[in-house]
């Protein structure tokens, strides 16, 4: 529908429109929006008092406090602004394997769903593609729900490929970001844990509110289809390992994969990041319904 993935049925879009992005911090936006901003503004939420100065709008003078203290104070209110949402999509070669798991398609769908939630809430969205081949997505903020179609068309032209180091790539991206906001990193995170923690840690250090979305294949986690003497080749580095896989080895591999995901989740929990894991053998719509909180979204 409108170039969106098949999972984006009208019912699913309706459910996405009921969601909004939740942040643990207040970020200054670029315009009026639904998120409280650290700026003083005209919202209904009280923020602070300050001494009245000539020229202030006397409608905000707190007359009750004047009666008690005989001093004029002006009531200050918080500003409500839009949220700058950054979505980092991992388009490295690893996202293309195993082909039967369609990991990259699920990653694109996840990014588009988050973008739709943000755009539907009146927030601004900037999509950044890490590595990848094919068309490039302009590093500009998109605003307005209708821009989701344009975004979907651009993302459809992206092909997974290449290799990158998450920490270095995110550091480069951080340099180009001038205003803090909500950050979503969509990746399989099949890399050294050190690289993951350093990359994500950079954003938390920059007072960003980060959600890590890990996309893994169902067969990939189970090690299904690998039997006997196998030379496994890393899709990105080209490194090859020769292993003999039997039932015991397959179970060992499965436990290792679970341990890797568990370590990333523990890091996120410890550092106050949101973390969600999506296995491609699950229904995408069910995953989005169940992982609203984990994704850093709210109704």
């Amino acid at each position, binding site marked *: 529908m409108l170039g969106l993935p098949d999972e984006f049925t009208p019912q699913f879009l309706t459910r996405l429109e009921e969601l909004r992005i939740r942040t643990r911090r207040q970020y200054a936006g670029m315009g009026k929006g639904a998120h409280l901003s650290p700026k003083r503004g005209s919202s209904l939420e009280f923020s602070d008092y300050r001494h009245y100065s000539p020229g202030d709008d006397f409608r905000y003078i707190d007359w009750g406090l004047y009666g008690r203290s005989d001093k004029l104070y002006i009531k200050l209110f918080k500003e409500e602004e839009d949220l700058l949402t950054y979505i980092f999509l991992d388009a490295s070669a690893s*996202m*293309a394997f195993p082909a039967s798991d369609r990991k990259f398609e699920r990653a694109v769908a996840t990014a588009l769903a988050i973008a739709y939630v943000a755009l539907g809430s009146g927030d601004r969205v900037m999509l950044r593609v890490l590595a990848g081949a094919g068309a490039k997505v302009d590093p500009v903020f998109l605003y307005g729900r209708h821009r989701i179609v344009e975004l979907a068309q651009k993302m459809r032209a992206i092909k997974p490929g290449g290799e990158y180091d998450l920490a270095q790539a995110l550091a480069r991206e951080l340099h180009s970001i001038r205003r803090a906001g909500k950050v979503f990193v969509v990746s399989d995170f099949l890399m050294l844990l050190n690289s993951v923690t350093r990359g994500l840690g950079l954003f938390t250090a920059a007072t960003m509110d980060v959600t890590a979305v890990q996309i893994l294949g169902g067969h990939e986690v189970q090690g299904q289809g690998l039997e*006997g*003497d*196998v*030379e496994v*080749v890393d899709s990105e580095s080209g490194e090859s390992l020769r292993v003999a896989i039997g039932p015991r080895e397959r179970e*060992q591999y499965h436990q290792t994969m679970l341990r*890797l995901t568990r370590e990333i989740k523990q890091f996120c929990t410890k550092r106050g990041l949101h973390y969600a894991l999506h296995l491609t053998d699950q229904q995408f719509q069910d995953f989005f319904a169940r992982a609203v909180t984990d994704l850093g979204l709210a109704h």
Partner: protein
Amino acid sequence: MGLLYPGALVFFAIVPALVLAYLARERPTRVTVSSVLAFRALRGFRKERYGGRPRFDWMFLAELLLLCLAVLAMAGPFVIRRSNPIAVLIDNSAAMQASMPEGGTRFQDAVAKTEAMLLASGGAGKISVYVTAPAPRRIAPPYATIAQARRAISRIKPLDAPDDATAVAALLADIGSGAHYGKVIFASSHAIAAPAPPLVHAITSGDPIPNLALSSFTLRREMFGAEALHARIEVSNFGTETKAIEVTIDGDGTRVADARESLAPGETAALEFPSLPPARIYRAVLSPSDGFPLDNVANATSGAVRAVSILFITPTPADAQGLSTIPGAEVKTVAPDSFTPDDLKRADVAIFEYSAPKELPLVNALLVMPPPDPVFGFAIKPASQIDIAGWSKTDPVTDSVNFRMLNLRSGEFFGEHPWMSAVVSGQGGGLILRGTRQDHRYVATGFNPFPYLGKRNLPMSVLTLNMLSYLAGLGASSAGYRTGEPFLVPAGVTEVTMPWGRKMKAQPGTLFQNVNTQGIYELSGPAVATIPRAVNLDDLAVSDLSNSQPLKVEVAPAPPSAASFAEKASISPWILLAIVVLGAFEAAIVYRRRHRMAEV
């Protein structure tokens, strides 16, 4: 257990080489994965590195087992089984059809005694069944059980063919030598002359009985012009008493002749029937009947009296027409211009009228008023009127000819001839010359006896028939056919109808083997008229039931002790079965693995 081809075990040398190759092999399936991060932990389990402990793989074990089994199968393994194989040789020749005084036939008695002896043997080994007629042979591969052998024996029928005593004795010597069988049961009307082979247990069925036999039935045509045939039947009395016998002959089902005779013991009499009326098939029956009815009947066919083929080379074909009316003569006319020596190949007699061949013909030939020629070198003196002055009175050509009644006009006289002599001569020289050259008979006439007019010119016809009889060499009896002796299928014959009515395919020019029943065989084909052929027992040795000669079996001086035989039972079929099962198992596993791999 042993091996038939132990040399094949050298292929076992491949096995260690394969194991080494397996240990050193690096042939994993190459699969691209998103990351090898999780696989690093597996390296600790990887034992396939050279020098490391090899990973146990059922498939490799199965392949190794397959290879070993294949090498073993090539070596031809067998196990030794102790057994006591038995050979049964049953006489199914014509003599076994003779009746027994107590009822039944000799064959039935032999079968019953054989089966009883088989049952008593216990059946500790395979049983081979042989028969004696028409030639000694084994009827089928050895039978595993007594029941199978008894079923096979019950299907054997006695034939009308005689056996070959020499061949039977040779077979007995072979199977009774102890090299193949632990016991030989020989059931026959023949006894075995002492010393009998120790392994041969002879069952002699039937005591000597008196027998009357038609030992020969032949037909012949004595001369040209006679429609009637001359039959000769020989009757033998193989008994101890003088017998009054009667022989009747039916021609196509009608009684045509009979004769009576009294035969002394051991006497053989020849009964002559000089003028049997024409018939297609003759059947002679001897009475009184006796215990061996097979040789009391004999058949003969008039077709067996061979026709004389005459090639008539003449510029006036009308002269040859009268010859076709002579019974037993087939005439073919050829003009001298179209004659070739190849035409003589199918002729018994050649007649050259007013002509002479360019080379000496290799068939008996009559030359009628030949021209001067270099081959025969006749000295010819033509004459406008010829008269007969003299003739040889004892010559077959002139026999019974009334020369005074011969009315000769113009002709030619022959002068002296180097190798032909005059049997009829006139005042100017010889009129009929006769001579032989290169085993062929030649007659030359200075006058023309043709056309053949039969009774209308009796003196000339008698002379003509005399000359043709002399040239055709008539007088020999027809050849008979005997049971058990294959006959040559004539040209054009494609089917043979057996005496019991069954039709069998036949190939011209080949031997027809199935001649084991006495009777009339009808030979037919799409382009030939049906030829009846009589096949008779015609064997005095068989008919002499009172004096059966014992078989003299020559055996080795010291036959090996054969209480039990070591029998090699091959186990290769079981190994091959195991290979197939293992192969199927491996194929199924490999398919399953690849199918799962393809899902990655």
